[in-house]
């Protein structure tokens, strides 16, 4: 009986230590790795000028599409803008910009001042579409292929390394 008690105490001790170890070493930051190789949801989003809708079928026509969520009030969006301008020159990549919870006039000013890198421009007035893509803050970008599979997701402004990474994938 004494032996069993000792074994049980040892087991509980190891279990508690194990739980502490796992909890303390676990990265609790939001991680996008689980989204890679997942299919993007079917969507239908209104174009920025309200003239038509963009759907998942529009994405299927392109080899690669970078969906970029941005807004004129978002300071990091200005930081990543030169990288988007550079990416807009790549033939194998279509840029779909989704203007997020923004005023049309301010968004237009933003693009006229900094340039418009987007091949397709849509808007998400109340942010509901962003939830479908698992967006929780902007800027965020999602690189997808013509099968609508997510190849890479970038949280925060695109960096020079991200640019190189995208170029490697699409070329």
């Amino acid at each position, binding site marked *: 009986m004494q032996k069993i008690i000792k074994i049980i105490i040892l087991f509980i001790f190891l279990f508690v230590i194990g739980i502490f170890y796992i909890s303390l070493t676990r990265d609790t930051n939001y991680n996008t790795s689980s989204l890679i190789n997942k299919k993007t949801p079917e969507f239908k989003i209104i174009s920025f000028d309200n003239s038509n809708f963009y759907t998942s079928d529009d994405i299927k026509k392109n080899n690669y599409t970078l969906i970029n969520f941005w807004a004129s009030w978002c300071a990091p969006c200005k930081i990543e803008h030169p990288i988007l301008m550079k990416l807009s020159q790549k033939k194998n990549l279509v840029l779909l910009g989704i203007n997020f919870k923004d005023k049309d006039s301010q968004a237009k000013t933003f693009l006229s001042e900094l340039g418009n890198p987007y091949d397709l421009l849509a808007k998400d007035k109340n*942010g509901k579409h962003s939830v479908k893509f*698992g967006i929780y803050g902007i800027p965020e970008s999602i690189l997808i292929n013509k099968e609508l599979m997510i190849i890479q997701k970038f949280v925060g402004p695109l960096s020079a390394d991200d640019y190189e990474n995208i170029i490697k994938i699409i070329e």
Partner: protein
Amino acid sequence: MKLNLLLLLFIFFSKFSFAAEKTVDPNLIHKNLRCLVCQGQSISDSNSDFAQTIKLVVKDLIDEGKTENEIYEFMSDKYGDWIVFKPQFNTQNSLLWILPYIVLIFGGFFIYSFLKKRQ
């Protein structure tokens, strides 16, 4: 008489349970969803932009007729299990749910056999 009373009670409570099944309380769902851009706050507690958007989407999903669990599954699918405060019962979390019952059964058995031996 007793039978009638029992029947009446059964109808009364079953009506309650059906009503509970049908209505999905958005506030309950908001309380069980984590605000990913806040420090330890739920969607219910937060006034952040993210929380406001999630509240709109939860309302839409309820209007579409989704159940509470379906809404949690939708959110977990988009943002990972981290967004739900109460972990879902799946293969990854099964130990978390089952272990307390195993400990309870083994603990009870252990105490019973320990006391029996002392007697």
